[in-house]
């Protein structure tokens, strides 16, 4: 059966068909240049988003005249507004002609003794001269070397009890060639890539090299970076901002102030990458990750349960306090700069973060009754990556010269037209005839995926959002995968013969950034009839040999049961909608956009203000939160920071919860017009956290709120003052607003 999809059925798509006329391509290219000017002006601070809304630039009726002499949405001879964008150039490159690189593992250094200056509990406010190219800086000004807000409130909460034992360092830097690639696996397990060869900053070897300011990644290089940690071993991640001092040096999009969120890390808010705790070029920020199990102060505090444990270098385990049911495995870390997250993450400020435990050891051979022996490898006592592979899937777009391009069609979202895995255009990956674990991250801005194998054969979902499921779920098509969600999937390639190939396919079609327009059948997706260029096969597995040693990995019938949670203290309702109002106007903490959140049915839908406290659950309690999609036709993947939650119901019924969502999660797809009811606890640490849509265009356009843990003032003040970063230092101001139902 051939079934027409997308534009073939009359729907519009954001990218023009390759069959479009040259005249239409020219028109679309002009419109795209104009939109690029808008983004550039916005990122340079020459216009505000409020200006754009007032001028109608973000609507199809926009008529602002730009230097190209055309409206952002060029008047179209084809009566289609917006006109769509020209397809990204592929320079004659065919899919599956470049190997997919493994992540580049950041080195772990023993601490204390490695970092200089030594990390401190409170922010290091040693002064340094400031570069006058920074905005608001006069010659002779000085500012602190660390961008973390100063003082006791933003001091590392567990620094004395859990001082850092491992240091990991990375810079945020302009695109450059990697000469120190460390995949932690031999070349024959990395599709033949020679790690000693320079790794240029290209999305395919035959694509143009990215200009220094087209992409900003950790250390400025590809492949994307991986941090490996284990429970009970506190890590100090020193992140240095080496982006250009002049904010106009961004190749048209992205902003040079940054804040790194360790996505769903369980640690104090000072390490959470709060959207308002950003720092400037020339500064560093010390993130202290204690790497603890949630509930450590009340559950298994004496560390007597071996299931709550961490691997040792000798191949054993050491017990740690906390609830083993809260063991986490696959995180990622990314920029969370207020109102610029979409641009900065898209530009490359994203990496992944594997957490190892006694249960999820990263060694498949150790049989001690605790280790689940998931596919990984055997050479090292823990953290083997031989058969444990991180995949960052993302759609990208390129301008006519092949440089990374960020477009705005409207506030609905951004879609690329080129599928990448680990920043490489439709790569191949060589595998052995055995089981592999793939830690898959949706690293897109606005695109959802629904994944399948091209032969329709089964996969085993073992973790959702980095949390091992109570039981594995065998499936042939994943759930729709929202932005920032992680699916850990085991694929057994022993069913294939050497020389066979099988590909990963995306079944979810988009027409715009609102959310999926349609999930196609596997046959429809493979037919090539979709007008969405990202409905396609995008990663080819090539079965190249038998494993040198027998595959001893397992997928046990029981992984990690869900935690038993305490009594419910209260409920809250958050409704995510368009049509936000703005009740505060602080120039730093507020951001106006069409999206917003209403809390507890009071006060209307509010645009983002990181100075506003919308909720303040009490420390040590459990609450039931209902997340409601206030609109009909779009989707929102909602992320709640700090502790993962259990989904109790969808649309009011537990029956509607997918088996794939049966474990702990930190991103909740609301679905069009839907609601999700979750149970979440607030334990161990305090401070200010966030809740937001992870369609980062929605997030940046005001679908974000701040909540904080109310500990009745001990050890914090109540409510918390809001940090206001400047190059000269972080100031504090009182909250701009506290919702009546917050505390």
């Amino acid at each position, binding site marked *: *059966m051939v079934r027409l999809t997308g534009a073939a059925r009359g729907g519009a798509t954001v990218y023009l068909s390759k069959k479009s006329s040259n005249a239409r391509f020219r028109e679309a290219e002009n419109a795209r240049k104009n939109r690029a000017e808008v983004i550039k002006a916005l990122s340079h601070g020459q216009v505000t988003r409020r200006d754009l809304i007032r001028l109608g630039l973000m609507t199809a009726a926009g008529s602002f005249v730009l230097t190209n002499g055309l409206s952002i949405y060029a008047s179209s001879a084809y009566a289609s507004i917006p006109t769509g964008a020209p397809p990204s150039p592929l320079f004659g490159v065919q899919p599956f002609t470049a190997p997919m690189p493994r992540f580049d593992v950041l080195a772990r250094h023993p601490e204390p003794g490695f970092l200089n200056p030594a990390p401190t509990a409170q922010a290091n406010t040693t002064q340094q001269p400031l570069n006058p190219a920074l905005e608001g800086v006069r010659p002779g000004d000085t500012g602190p070397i660390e961008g973390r807000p100063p003082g006791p409130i933003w001091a590392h909460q567990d620094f004395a009890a859990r001082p850092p034992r491992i240091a990991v360092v990375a810079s945020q830097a302009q695109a450059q060639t990697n000469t120190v690639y460390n995949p932690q696996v031999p070349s024959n397990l990395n599709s033949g890539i020679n790690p000693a060869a320079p790794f240029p900053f290209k999305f395919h070897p035959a694509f143009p090299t990215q200009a220094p300011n087209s992409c900003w990644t950790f250390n400025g290089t590809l492949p994307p970076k991986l941090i490996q940690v284990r429970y009970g071993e506190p890590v100090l991640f020193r992140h240095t901002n080496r982006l250009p001092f002049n904010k106009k040096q961004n190749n048209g999009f992205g902003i040079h102030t940054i804040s790194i969120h360790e996505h769903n890390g369980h640690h104090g808010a000072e390490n959470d990458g709060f959207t308002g705790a950003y720092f400037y070029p020339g500064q560093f920020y010390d993130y202290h990750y204690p790497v603890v199990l949630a509930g450590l102060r009340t559950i298994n505090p004496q560390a007597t349960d071996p299931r709550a444990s961490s691997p040792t270098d000798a191949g054993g385990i050491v017990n740690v306090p906390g609830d083993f*049911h809260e063991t986490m495995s696959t995180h990622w870390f990314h920029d969370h700069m207020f109102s610029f997250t979409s641009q900065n993450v898209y530009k490359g400020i994203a990496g992944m973060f594997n957490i190892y435990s006694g249960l999820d050891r990263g060694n498949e051979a150790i049989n001690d009754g605790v280790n689940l022996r998931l596919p990984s490898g055997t050479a090292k006592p823990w953290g083997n990556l031989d058969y444990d592979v991180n995949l960052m899937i993302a759609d990208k777009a390129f301008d006519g010269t092949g440089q990374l391009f960020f477009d705005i069609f409207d506030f*609905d979202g951004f879609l690329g037209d080129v599928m990448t895995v680990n920043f490489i255009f439709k790569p191949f990956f060589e595998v052995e005839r055995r*089981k592999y674990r793939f830690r898959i991250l949706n690293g897109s801005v606005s695109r959802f995926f629904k994944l*399948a194998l091209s*032969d*329709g*054969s*089964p996969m*085993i979902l073992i973790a959702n959002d980095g949390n091992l499921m*109570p039981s594995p779920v*065998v*499936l*042939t*098509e994943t*759930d729709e995968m929202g932005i920032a969600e992680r699916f850990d999937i*085991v694929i*057994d390639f022993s*069913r294939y013969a050497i020389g066979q190939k099988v590909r990963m396919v995306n079944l979810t079609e988009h027409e*715009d950034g*609102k*959310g*999926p*327009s*349609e999930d196609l*059948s*596997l*046959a429809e997706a*493979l*037919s090539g009839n979709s007008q969405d260029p990202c409905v*396609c*096969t995008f990663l080819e597995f090539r079965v190249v040999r038998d494993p040198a040693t027998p595959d001893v990995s*397992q997928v046990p019938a029981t992984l990690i049961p*869900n935690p*038993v*949670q305490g009594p*419910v203290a*209260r*409920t809250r309702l958050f*409704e995510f909608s368009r049509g936000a109002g703005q009740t505060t106007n602080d120039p730093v903490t507020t951001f106006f956009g069409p999206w917003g959140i209403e809390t*507890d049915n009071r006060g209307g839908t509010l645009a983002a203000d990181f100075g506003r406290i919308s909720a303040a659950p009490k420390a040590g309690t459990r609450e*039931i939160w209902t997340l409601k999609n206030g*609109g*009909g*036709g*779009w989707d929102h993947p909602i992320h709640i920071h700090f502790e993962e939650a*259990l989904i*109790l*119901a969808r649309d*009011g019924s*537990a029956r*509607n919860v*997918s*088996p794939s969502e049966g474990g702990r999660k930190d991103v909740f797809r609301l*679905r069009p*017009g*839907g*609601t999700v*009811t979750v*149970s979440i606890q607030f334990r161990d640490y305090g401070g200010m956290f966030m809740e937001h849509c992870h369609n980062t265009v929605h997030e940046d356009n005001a679908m974000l709120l701040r909540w904080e843990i109310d500990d009745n003032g001990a050890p914090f003040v109540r409510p918390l003052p809001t940090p206001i970063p400047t190059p000269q230092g972080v100031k504090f101001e009182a909250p701009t607003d506290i919702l009546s139902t917050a505390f």
Partner: protein
Amino acid sequence: MKTAHWLVPAVLSLSLGFAPAAHAQTASKTVPIAGIVSGQPESVVFGGAARIEVTEAVDNVSGSPPRMVVSITLLGMSGRGSSTGATYVLSGQTTLTRRLVANDVVEVTFPFSVLGSAAVAVTQTAVASFSFSYDATSNKIVSANASIAALNLPAAN
């Protein structure tokens, strides 16, 4: 999930200050589903039921084409191997976003295996086809039928 499902209504009814959010109306229909999944090592004759649920999602802001959320749940599907007589099970639940149309055909793949197989031993796939008519005015699934067969795919492009 350790949180017992019977607790959910109780938890939700705590409602400290507000009622649970209103939900879009869902139309539901349960239909028989049967078919032969031919293939190796043996063909399997399946029978059972499937519940189709349609929830309309109208974009009330932008005027975009409305969509519907279609949920498919296989209920009590079992099969018998044509040569061994072994019992096979096929279960699953999937939720799809679809454009709102009066008549839709949805194809979904599901894994199946011999009863009692471990997760790693599940290697076979069937495709279930659902054809249904949805009346948005009355919010009803007017008619529906379903079948199951072996997967027959075009070459990957």
